[in-house]
């Protein structure tokens, strides 16, 4: 039994979520191979070969995989998959995009966003936005699975010495073309992998006031998120949204500022290790999940917190 893990990367750097996905594969048990599909991605393959517990790295390096377009990547993975018992990818927007296409090409059901491995064929996954946890058993000949990275402690990124093998690619499917991308440029850590996350809600009252959170974030080396209410109000872009319909985060420290705590927001952050809530409404539901609650005007408390750190 061998497990194929699909690496998440940007052709230059191996994304941390790959390490969490390898950790999930280790829980299943078996030889672990990592596929790096990209263009000019040799550095990523070398990084993948150093992950503890990885036996082999397969590299498909060609222009068709430069942006991991599902139409191009899915046939490559499906062709490889027949030699494996499990195919795992991080539940990133990339993994969510291409992996169901792989599953359908293989004519197997997929398990999405597992948060625990019970055995080689049984997994736990959240449903109803995390309001219920289903234990699901799969009898599929190849188990195709996306992994919620925050639910698994990362495998060590150093210490491994896997062999690297080049693969012939399957070329362009000719159905889709990459036009461009706009990535938010930031010196702050990425939201889903940050150790500390500070999120703002409607209580911030404006987009400009998010500067308060950025100042605090810079002190703590934190990422900044937002509630859906703040996104809907135009205070923050959608890719900052933490919640059921946005990003799922589980940092060591989550600071919710001016967030009331709607179910949909809690679904995205309630697995954080320590939760701090700052809100002037003592009755806000966020206090029911917070380890430390501070009933205060955020416009006074946040600058003071920044000063005291």
């Amino acid at each position, binding site marked *: 039994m061998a497990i194929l893990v699909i690496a998440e990367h940007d052709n230059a750097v191996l994304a941390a979520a790959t390490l969490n996905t390898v950790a999930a594969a280790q829980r299943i048990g078996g030889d672990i191979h990592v596929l790096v599909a990209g263009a000019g991605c040799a550095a990523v393959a070398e990084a993948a070969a150093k992950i503890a517990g990885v036996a082999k790295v397969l590299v498909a390096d060609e222009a068709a995989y430069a942006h991991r377009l*599902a139409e191009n990547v*899915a046939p490559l993975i499906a062709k490889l998959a027949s030699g494996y018992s499990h195919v795992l990818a991080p539940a*990133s*927007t*990339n993994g*969510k995009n*291409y*992996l*169901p*296409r792989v*599953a*359908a090409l293989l*004519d*197997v*059901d*997929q398990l*999405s966003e597992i948060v625990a491995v019970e055995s080689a064929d049984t997994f736990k996954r*959240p*449903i*109803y936005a*995390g*309001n*219920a*946890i*289903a*234990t*699901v*058993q*799969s*009898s*599929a000949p190849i188990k195709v699975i996306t992994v919620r990275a925050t639910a698994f402690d990362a495998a060590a990124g150093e210490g491994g010495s896997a062999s690297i093998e080049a693969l012939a690619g399957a070329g362009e499917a000719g*159905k*889709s*073309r*990459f*036009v*461009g*991308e*706009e*990535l*938010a440029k930031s010196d702050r850590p*990425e939201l889903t992998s940050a150790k500390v996350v500070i999120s703002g809600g409607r209580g911030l009252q404006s987009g400009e006031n998010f500067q308060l959170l950025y100042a605090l974030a810079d002190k703590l080396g934190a990422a900044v998120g937002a509630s859906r209410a703040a996104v809907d109000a135009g205070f923050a872009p*959608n890719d900052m949204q933490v919640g059921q*319909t946005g990003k799922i985060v589980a940092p*060591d*420290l989550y600071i919710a500022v001016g967030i009331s705590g709607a179910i949909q927001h809690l679904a995205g952050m*309630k697995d954080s290790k*320590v939760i701090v809530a700052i809100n002037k409404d003592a009755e806000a539901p966020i*206090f*029911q*999940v917070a*380890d*430390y*609650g*501070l*009933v205060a005007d955020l416009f006074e*408390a946040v600058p003071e*917190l920044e000063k*005291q*750190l």
Partner: protein
Amino acid sequence: MKVLVAVKRVVDYNVKVRVKADHSGVDLANVKMSMNPFCEIAVEEAVRLKEKGIASEIVAVSVGPAQAQEQLRTALALGADRAILIETDEELGSLAVAKLLKAVVDQEQPQLVITGKQAIDSDNNQTGQMLAALTGYAQGTFASKVEVAGDKLKVVREIDGGLQTLELALPAIVTTDLRLNEPRYASLPNIMKAKKKPLETVKPADLGVSVASTLKVLKVEAPAERQAGIKVGSVAELVEKLKNEAKVI
């Protein structure tokens, strides 16, 4: 061009679901059901394409129990021209649903299929991508902007860290993300008119599709409850607790 929109009947997004005592699933008895929010966005996008003169006909399709006719009537009231219900009382997996939709695509030959990115009950986020695989069409998932330009489709996608723009060959599958549009409400006259629009019902067997699944839900549990902690009196106390008690800063 013809546009096919898939809609799913799910528990209303405002309902806090409860797990059944026997752990066999969540309790859906007497719970308000609605159209999946991402499917509402899909219907709205199709209607806007029709208003722009790009879409010529909108066919709404649902896979579900007889009551899913309600959600199809809603789609008709919002602007779909006709509807197809693939009726089944079984809870089907995404692959089975994708196979059923593929059979409808084969019959209807739409140029564009729009689905929600995920349903808020099973949270699978699979059906659109699987349908794209089965039809061999291009996929524009998590779309925040869709533009038809000749025989191509320009799709702006919500990806980790920002936005990505793709150009897809038509026919194509699009799955909707939250920012694609803000769905309208159905007006009363349109709700009345929708009652007269055609709604056809077929069974999975009529489409020659096997809906067997390899996934078995062994149990469904409530997530671990988080206990409320303490209230601190000041910023200084908060900093002290975070440093010395929680040791996270």
